[in-house]
């Protein structure tokens, strides 16, 4: 029993039982397979149309693209770290994977391509290719080329180089030193001819680059010139320093700045001291005039005491004698035992005792008298004044020397600052010329190395295989193109159908009406055309 029949019966039973219609399908938001298939059949014209369009477009491309034939030739790079270089003047070593990059640069260089197009008949072959095969497709594209081309014009040369560059292909099989060159053209013989000319010109051009004496001379003369310039710059630098009597300009400049600063500070100090002392001296002089040199004072003058004086003299004499005895008798024990020492000591003691008693009994009050003494303040002021004058004299004598030193240091600083720009220029010139010397030395060593290689007529590029004659066409693959167009159009159409179906909520069938909530489907009437009627009848028969 088909699914369609089952659904029909379900609907009919529900209707008969006066039951509510079926709930909306759970597949409302999904794309039912049946719906998709129906959509595919409904939009079959679209699918057919797009597929046909794809086939037509690719068919047109396939028909309008002429056959291409590829001719191949082979170069060999000989091994060796020196010999691998295609062009030593380019600097650096081309090794391993870099060989292809360098080779591509060299083999597509404008110089080489121009040599190729200058060969007799090449312009015509490139811009107006003829065909030796029955190539109808090539004839189709002939109409695009202008009838009259001026082969001498700049535009024609550029166009020829463009054709040559776009048709050439370079490849390097892995782990080999072989370089494969291929040329693609619309005619097999033409491809072979052009490639042969190209390979021949590539070898000749490569050799000419190797044997370039003129370039070596140029590098040598440049190196010599740079050497001379550098020596002159260094000489000028040394003269400059010598003239200024310096070893190092920067250090000298820094020192001059410091010195000038220091001398100026000293000068300021000295001048400041002089001013200060002059002011101080003036003050002291003024105050000295107001201070009296002597002053009167009351003083107690003691009465003369002859006994006291006599006793003190006696004591002094005996003490002097004792001093002499002390120097004579060094041992303390010996002194104790010496009669003269003992008697002297006893006499001193007795005299002192007698003096004490005398002083106790006699009270020498003395008399108070008015006497004139020197004013200490005056003395002090005078002393200060003299000192100040002395200092001032000292500073005044120092001033000319300090002034002169400051002027000298300032003049030196000004000179050095004026010369600074000149010094900087000389320094930079030396640095620049030193760097340039390094570069030219490197170029010279490479040029010399290259000359050594060229002496042996050694070329790293050797042709091992001539340009091959293509035996079959290289492209286009018309079948593949048409198939691509077919499947491309088909999938595009299917995609479009899918997109349109996903968003399509049009009521087309009983199921679509069934999905509407609360809508009972009472009947379905087909469109009354032959095929539709047959299908409707078949479906009805299947369901009964």
């Amino acid at each position: 029993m088909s699914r369609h029949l089952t659904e029909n019966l379900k609907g009919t039973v529900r209707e008969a039982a006066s039951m509510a219609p079926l709930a909306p399908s759970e597949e409302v938001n999904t794309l039912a397979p049946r719906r998709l298939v129906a959509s595919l059949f409904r939009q079959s014209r679209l699918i057919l149309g797009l597929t046909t369009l794809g086939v037509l477009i690719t068919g047109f491309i396939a028909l309008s693209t002429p056959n291409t034939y590829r001719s191949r030739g082979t170069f060999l790079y000989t091994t060796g770290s020196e010999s691998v270089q295609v062009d030593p003047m380019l600097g650096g070593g081309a090794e391993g994977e870099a060989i292809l990059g360098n080779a591509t640069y060299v083999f597509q260089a404008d110089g080489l391509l121009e040599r190729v197009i200058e060969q007799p008949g090449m312009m015509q072959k490139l811009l107006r290719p003829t065909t030796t095969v029955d190539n109808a497709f090539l004839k189709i594209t002939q109409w695009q080329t202008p009838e009259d081309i001026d082969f001498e014009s700049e535009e024609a040369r550029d166009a020829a180089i463009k054709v040559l560059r776009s048709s050439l292909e370079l490849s390097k099989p892995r782990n080999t030193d072989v370089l494969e060159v291929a040329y693609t053209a619309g005619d097999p013989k033409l491809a072979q001819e052009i490639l042969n000319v190209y390979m021949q010109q590539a070898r000749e051009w490569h050799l000419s680059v190797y044997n370039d004496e003129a370039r070596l001379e140029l590098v040598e003369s440049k190196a010599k010139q740079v050497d001379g310039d550098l020596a002159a710059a260094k000489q000028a630098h040394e003269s400059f320093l010598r003239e200024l009597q310096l070893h190092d300009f920067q250090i000298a400049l820094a020192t001059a700045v410091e010195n000038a600063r220091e001398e100026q500070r000293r000068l300021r100090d000295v001048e400041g001291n002089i001013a200060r002392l002059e002011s101080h001296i003036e003050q002291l002089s003024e105050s000295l005039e107001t201070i009296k040199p002597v002053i009167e004072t009351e003083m107690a003058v003691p009465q003369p005491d002859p006994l006291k004086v006599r006793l003190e003299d006696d004591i002094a004499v005996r003490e002097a004698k004792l001093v002499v005895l002390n120097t004579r008798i060094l041992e303390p024990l010996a002194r104790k035992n010496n009669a003269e020492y003992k008697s002297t000591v006893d006499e001193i003691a007795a005299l002192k005792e007698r003096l004490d008693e005398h002083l106790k009994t006699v009270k020498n009050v003395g008399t108070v008298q008015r006497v004139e003494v020197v004013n200490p303040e005056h003395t002090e002021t005078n002393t200060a004044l003299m000192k100040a004058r002395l200092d001032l004299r000292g500073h005044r004598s120092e001033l000319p020397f300090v002034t002169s030193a400051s002027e000298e240091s300032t003049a030196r600083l000004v000179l050095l600052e004026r010369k600074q720009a000149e010094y900087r220029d000389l320094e930079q010139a030396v640095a620049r010329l030193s760097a340039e010397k390094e570069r030219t030395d490197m170029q010279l060593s490479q040029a010399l190395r290259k000359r050594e290689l060229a002496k042996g007529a050694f070329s790293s590029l050797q042709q091992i295989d001539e340009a091959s004659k293509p035996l079959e066409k290289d492209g286009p693959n018309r079948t593949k193109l048409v198939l691509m167009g077919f499947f491309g159009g088909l999938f595009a159409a299917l995609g479009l159908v899918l997109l349109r179906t996903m968003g399509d909520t049009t009521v087309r069938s009983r199921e679509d009406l069934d999905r509407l909530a609360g809508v009972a489907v009472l009947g379905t009437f087909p469109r009354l055309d032959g095929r539709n009627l047959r299908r409707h009848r078949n479906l009805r028969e299947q369901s009964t």
Partner: protein
Amino acid sequence: MSELLFDKDGKVVKGRRVDVVSTEMGYLWANLLNRGFLNNQKSLGFCSIEDDEGAASTALNLALFLGAKGRRVVFVEADMHRATAAKQFKLSDSPGLAEFLAGQASIVDVVRPQVAGGVDLVPAGRSEDPFWSFTGGGFGKVIERLGGSYDVCFVSVPPLNRAPESTLVVRTLDASVLVVGANRHRSEVVAQQTAHLRALGTPFLGAVLNEMVHDVPPLIAKLT
């Protein structure tokens, strides 16, 4: 089985088409009865959303089908914008419903008896302003009077989206059915119109899908 049936364009259906249409009419009538029509309903309106969906032809074909079965059926053409029923039966279109509603003719004048076996016809007539024809309440009287004389009354209702008088017509009837043209409307539109019909208060019995196209061959349809 009635041999007189019409297609959507008003042409007589012939040959095997007659069988198919008749069969489907049978299914339609069975479903209508299952939905309770004729229990206490006599007048049924066939509505459509837009012109040319086959509501009138479906109503007429059902009338012819039932008439051939011995029922006494009257078909009322309420769509005055596209009055074709009289022409189909090669009758004069006036006087018709419009003249009756305008008070210019009697019910007897407007009914065309026995246009086919068991089927009487009330053509639309001619009206300059169909909408105002239905505002007087006269249509209700027509239905009432016809209901007494016939077993069943089918009315072709003007399109819901084109004629404002369609709601006036539907509200006067006992039940309504929506005829949907296949491949014409989105489900949202159909759902909206069924909701609109329900809101009028007249029992909505269901929908009929017309002009359905079977895109998929039966063999492939069987597989899916």
